[in-house]
């Protein structure tokens, strides 16, 4: 056997197990999810006839699905801007201070490594209308008490605030790295030309940080599209409530598939989610392939 052939044999041997895993645990199940979405599939009956687009039509005519989809969009549209603005603001502040920078960076990062389930229950208790600390503070400040997770018009934003709290430290770290990568000469040149403060930020920092911003927005959007753990645990007694106001697509899938055992519609909803993530990922790839080096 030639040297090249021997190396190829080693390569296939090394890859055999990992590739088998990817095929058996990711690729085939993804295909099966598509298959299930086109069949009537409940765990109990052995008969699983092909039903075409019936599952998709069913979720399309289910107001709960559209509520979940609308809510998920609302999480993205409130959480992502809040997270990006806070993250960038904190990162810029961190670059202004000389001491305790590492300390603050670590402090803001703690929620990101905190077990999400535990943190969600802590936040649920913080939001307690009668006994939670938030309403005590509102009271002390002379503001009216709020219902937070108990009122449909507030609950989604209360959950989104927790998710922002969780991810803002991660965002700060990413922005700090992005800011550090901006060559200093740009600022020096602009200062020679008399630019300062806001104009430096507007005309140098923001444009040069653009790839980092886009990456963060895309990554964050994909995370928010898959919100589940925080919502389920913060609204545990009334999953996705009150009145479905915090329901997300993934929670909808969980309830359909694993509480009502209606696998067909559940799989159809995951296929829709997959399509959304695919479109966002491809758009991002397009954006980055058009990028030019500065």
């Amino acid at each position, binding site marked *: 056997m030639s040297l090249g052939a021997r*190396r190829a044999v080693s390569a296939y041997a090394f*890859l055999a197990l990992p590739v088998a895993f990817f095929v058996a645990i990711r690729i085939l199940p993804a295909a099966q999810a598509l298959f299930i979405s086109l069949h009537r599939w409940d765990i109990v009956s052995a008969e699983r006839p092909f039903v075409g687009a019936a599952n998709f039509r069913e979720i399309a005519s289910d107001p709960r699905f559209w509520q979940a989809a609308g809510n998920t969009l609302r999480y993205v549209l409130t959480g992502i801007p809040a997270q990006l603005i806070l993250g960038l603001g904190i990162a810029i502040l961190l670059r202004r201070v000389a001491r305790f920078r590492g300390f603050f960076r670590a402090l803001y990062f703690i929620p990101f490594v905190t077990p999400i389930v535990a943190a969600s229950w802590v936040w649920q208790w913080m939001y307690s209308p009668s006994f939670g600390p938030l309403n005590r503070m509102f009271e002390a400040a002379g503001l009216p008490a709020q219902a937070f997770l108990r009122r449909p018009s507030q609950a989604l934003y209360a959950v989104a605030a927790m998710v922002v709290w969780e991810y803002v430290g991660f965002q700060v770290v990413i922005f700090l790295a992005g800011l550090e*990568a901006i060559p200093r000469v740009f600022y020096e040149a602009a200062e020679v030309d008399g630019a300062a403060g806001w104009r430096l930020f507007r005309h140098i920092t923001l444009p040069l940080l653009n790839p980092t911003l886009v990456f963060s927005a895309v990554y964050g959007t994909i995370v928010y599209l898959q919100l589940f753990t925080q919502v389920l645990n913060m609204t545990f007694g009334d999953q996705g409530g009150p009145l479905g106001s915090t329901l997300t697509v993934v929670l909808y899938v969980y309830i359909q598939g694993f509480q009502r055992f209606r696998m067909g519609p559940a799989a159809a909803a995951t296929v829709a989610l997959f399509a959304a993530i695919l479109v966002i990922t491809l758009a991002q790839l397009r954006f980055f392939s058009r990028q030019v080096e500065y």
Partner: protein
Amino acid sequence: MTARAAAGAPAVRAAAGRIPLPRRAGGDALAYLALAAGGVLVVFPFLWMLATSLKGPREIFELHFWPQAPTLENFRQVLTATQFPRWILNSAAVAVITTGSVAFFDSLAGYTLTKLRFPGRNVIFVVILSTLMIPTEMLVIPWYTMSVRFGWIDTYWGIMFPGLTSAFGVFLMRQFMTGIPDELLDAGRIDGVSEFGLFTRIALPLVRPALAALCIFTFLGNWNAFLWPLIVIQTPAMRTLPVGIALFSGEAGSAWHLIMAASTLAVLPVLAVFIVLQRQIIEGVVLTGLRN
């Protein structure tokens, strides 16, 4: 703005990139004030959790923030009335085994896909990479039907099989392995090192920082995993920590002193590890995040 500026970042990048902002004393004081205020907001939920966990069942409905008669009784109750220690062990076992598997198979695949030449290399890489776009939520239904068919429901294997490899890990390790000079490997070959030995003895030690970052994130991800374990686990003894806490808290009703004690028990070990490893963890985010 000198010594601390370079902290945590490669010295070269930090020196090249620091923004020379005008340094007014007043501006800096405001920056400190804003950062401290934000820091208090970030930490506040933890203080509230700790304060509640030390209160008695009646005291949690009283108005003061800090317990007047701190007690460890809640912790005793959580640890004895539930299978909490078992849940911690379950989580640890699942996280350790999946992390070991990902560290080994992902770096081996990453190495092979950039350092060995063979027909089909790019196809295999693209196929693995494409699985990154498949959301876990799409897979849990097929995983469930598969687990029912093979009897994996409520078993350790059932909990951890989805986490044994990660496409992101293969991608990451391939990126870092690409930087290893081929001459180094060829020199090893001349010395009679086997192909597998080249991977373990030459390639792996050279990518240690990336490997450490991958291990930390894989561990955290599996330690915190919730959706799939919630589906596959059926008996209390098999619960992982997140599933155990969720279901315990759901049953505890308004016994917030117990729920917060359970949360504290879940948060403290992670916090301790984070304090020790915070620099590596945060640098790992930079290292891996920017390779995306």
